[in-house]
C-alpha cells in the first residue's frame, strides 16, 4: 500500500513537471530555443497568485486566472524585448539571453518581494479520500493536480490539431520558411506560443505551490531544470512526449527518494535520462532527425 501511495504522489509531482515541460517543449518546437527563463516565469506566477489570494483575498480560481493573465503578458513581453531581436542570431546568443532574463527575474523578485520565503495558502483544503479501509489516503490537492494536468493535455491537443492557429503552429515547427511562404505570420505564432507556454507555467505554479508551499525567488529553477529534462526525456517538441516524460520523471524521482535514497534521487533521475537518450537519441516519443547533406 505504501508503494501505491508513493506512486500516486509521484504521479502528482509528475503532472506538474508535465505542464511545465509542455511550455519548454512548445517553445522549443516552434522557436527552436531553450528558454531557460521558463522556470522563473513559474516563480512569478506563484508570487502573483500568492498575492492575489492573500492581499486581494481572491478565491484560488480567480487567483489562478490572474496569474495566468500576468504570466502570459510577461511571457509575451520577454519574447518581444529579449528574444525577438535575436531571431537571426546564433542559438547560443539566444540561450545566453534567456539566462540573463532568468537572472533578471530572480533578482527582480528578490528586490520586490524580499528573499524570505512565503507560505502558499492551502487552496484545496486538507480533505482526503480514503480507500482500502483507510490504508490508502489521497489528498484533494493530489487529485486536482492530476485532473488539471489531464484537462490541460486534452485542451492543448485539441487546440493544436483542430484549430487554424494550431495547424499554423505545427507548420512553423516543421519549416518556418515554408510556413512564411504559405502566408503564416511566424512572429505572431511565436508570440502565441510564448503566451500559451507562460500561461501553462502559471497553472503549474499554482499546482506546485499547493503541494509544496514554499514561495521564494529561486522557487522555479529546480522544477525548471527537471521539467526541461522531462521534455527531453519524452522527446522535445512533442506534446504527448512532455506528458509521458513529466509523469515518468515524477514517478522515478518519488520512488528513488522512497526506496533508494533521498540524497541520490537527482543523480538517478539524470542517469535514467542518459540511458533513455542512448537507446532513443531523440527521447521516448521524439521524431527521428533526418540529416540533410
Amino acid at each position, binding site marked *: 500500500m505504501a508503494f501505491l501511495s*508513493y506512486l500516486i504522489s509521484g504521479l502528482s509531482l509528475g503532472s506538474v513537471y508535465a505542464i511545465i515541460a509542455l511550455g519548454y517543449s512548445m517553445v522549443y518546437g516552434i522557436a527552436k530555443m531553450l528558454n531557460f527563463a521558463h522556470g522563473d516565469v513559474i516563480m512569478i506566477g506563484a508570487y502573483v497568485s500568492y498575492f492575489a489570494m492573500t492581499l486581494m483575498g481572491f478565491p484560488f480560481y480567480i487567483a489562478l486566472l490572474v496569474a495566468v493573465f500576468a504570466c502570459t503578458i510577461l511571457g509575451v513581453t520577454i519574447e518581444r524585448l529579449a528574444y525577438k531581436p535575436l531571431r537571426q542570431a546564433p542559438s547560443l546568443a539566444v540561450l545566453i539571453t534567456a539566462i540573463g532574463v532568468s537572472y533578471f527575474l530572480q*533578482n527582480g523578485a528578490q528586490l520586490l518581494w*524580499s*528573499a524570505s*520565503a512565503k507560505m502558499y*495558502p*492551502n487552496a484545496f483544503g486538507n480533505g482526503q479520500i480514503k480507500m482500502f479501509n483507510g490504508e490508502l489516503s489521497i489528498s484533494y490537492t493530489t487529485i486536482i493536480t492530476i485532473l488539471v494536468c489531464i484537462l490541460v493535455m486534452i485542451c492543448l491537443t485539441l487546440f493544436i490539431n483542430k484549430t487554424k492557429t494550431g495547424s499554423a503552429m505545427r507548420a512553423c515547427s516543421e519549416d518556418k520558411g515554408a510556413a512564411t511562404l504559405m502566408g503564416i505570420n511566424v512572429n505572431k505564432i511565436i508570440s502565441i506560443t510564448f503566451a500559451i507556454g507562460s500561461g501553462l507555467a502559471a497553472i503549474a505554479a499554482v499546482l506546485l505551490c499547493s*503541494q509544496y508551499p514554499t514561495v521564494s525567488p529561486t522557487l522555479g529553477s529546480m522544477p525548471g531544470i527537471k521539467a526541461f529534462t522531462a521534455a527531453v526525456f519524452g522527446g522535445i517538441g512533442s506534446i504527448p512526449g512532455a506528458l509521458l516524460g513529466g509523469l515518468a520523471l515524477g514517478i522515478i524521482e518519488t520512488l528513488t*527518494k522512497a526506496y533508494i535514497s533521498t*540524497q541520490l534521487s537527482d543523480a538517478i533521475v539524470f542517469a535514467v535520462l542518459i540511458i533513455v537518450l542512448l537507446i532513443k537519441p531523440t527521447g521516448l516519443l521524439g521524431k527521428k532527425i533526418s540529416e540533410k547533406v
Partner: protein
Amino acid sequence: MTMKKLLKGGLAAVMALSMYACSANSGGSSSSDGGAIKLGMSGPLSGGAAIYGQAVQRGAEIAIEEVNEAGKVKFELNAQDDEADPTKSPNAYGVLKDWGMQVSLGCVTSGAGSAVSADYQNDKIFAMTPSGSSMDVILNSATNEYYGTVFQMCFTDPNQGVASADYLSAHSDLGSKVAVIWKNDDNYSTGVHDKFVEEANKVGLEIVSDSTFNDSNDSDFSVQIKAAQDSGADILFLPIYYEPAAAILVAADQVGYKPTVFGVDGLDGILGVEGFDTSLAEGVYLLTPFSADATDEKTVNFVKKYQEKYGEIPNQFAADAYDVVYAFAKACEEGGVTADMSASDIAEIMVKQFTSMTFDGITGTGMTWAETGEVSKDPKAMVIKDGAYVGVQD
C-alpha cells in the same frame, strides 16, 4: 571587427559606470562621521540565503544607531554580499579590508565564514560572527588549532545537539521514538544532527527514522514525512531553519501526522513566515536563546524598532547581530578602543576584553567567552502556544 570593438567599448563603459558607482557609494556605510570605528560584515545579501544576511545587517544597523546616539563609542558599518558562498567570501573580505575595517561581524553563514577565518587570524582583525555556528568557523580543522581572533555570539552546533538530546531524555512525557529530518548540505543542520544522534545513543533515546533533504530538494517533503509517520515516531526533531520547517509542518498536516515537533534556535522565526498558518506550529518546542515575544525592556525596544523600520518581526539572526554590536560597544568602551587605533591593536584588546567580561544582551544574560571563541549562555526551552512563544517552566 567593429562588432568586437563595440563590445569592448560597451564593456568598458559598464566598467567606468560601475567604478563611478563604487566611488560614489562605498557600500552600505550607515554613517560616515569622523571618529567612528569601522565595522565590517559579510553575508548573503542576494540569492537564496539573503534573508539571513539582511536580518544580520538590519539588526546591526539598529544597534549601531542606538550606540551612536548614546555617544560613548561610534561605529560605522560596511556590509558586503558574499552570497553565502565560501569562494565569494574572500572577495567580500578583500573589499572590507581595502575599506579599512577595524573590527568585524565576520560572516553570517558558517561555510562562507570558515573560508575567511584564517584571513582574520593572519591579518589580526577581531571578528565575532552573530550566526556562523559551525566549529569550522573558530577551529582550523586541518591543524586542530583555534583561530583565536574569531569569536561567536551564537551557540556552536554540537552544543545545541547535545542540549536537545538531553532535554528530550529528561522530558520523556513528550515521547520516546524520535524521527529526525535534517538538511545534509548545511553545516548548521549537520553539526546539530550528528551530535544529537551521538548523545541520543548515550542517553537512550530511540531514533526510529532519520532522513535528509538538501538545497535542490527543499520543497517536497512528502517522502520524509511518510517515512517518519510509518516508523511510528512521536517526536519529530528538526535541526533546521524555520523556512523548510514551515514547509515540513504543512506536509505533515496534509497527511494528518501530528507528532511533537522539537527544534533548535533555527526554528525561531517560524511564526513570522508570511502566509504560514501558525496554528500548525501550535505545540512546537524549541531550544533558543532569543524570543521576539520576550517582555524584557531591551527585547521589546528592539522588536518595536525593527518592526517600524523593516515591517517584519526580527529573527534570531537579527537579535544576535544586535547583541554583537552592543558587545563590541561594551568591549571598546571598557578597553579604551578608539577609532584611530590599528585593527591589530584593537584585536588584542578585544580578545582580552571578551575573555574577561560578562555581557547581558537580548539573546541571553551572563554570557562569557572562552579563549577558543565559543560563547557560553543558556538555551531556553520555548513552546508555541496560541501563536506565541512561551517559556517552558521546568
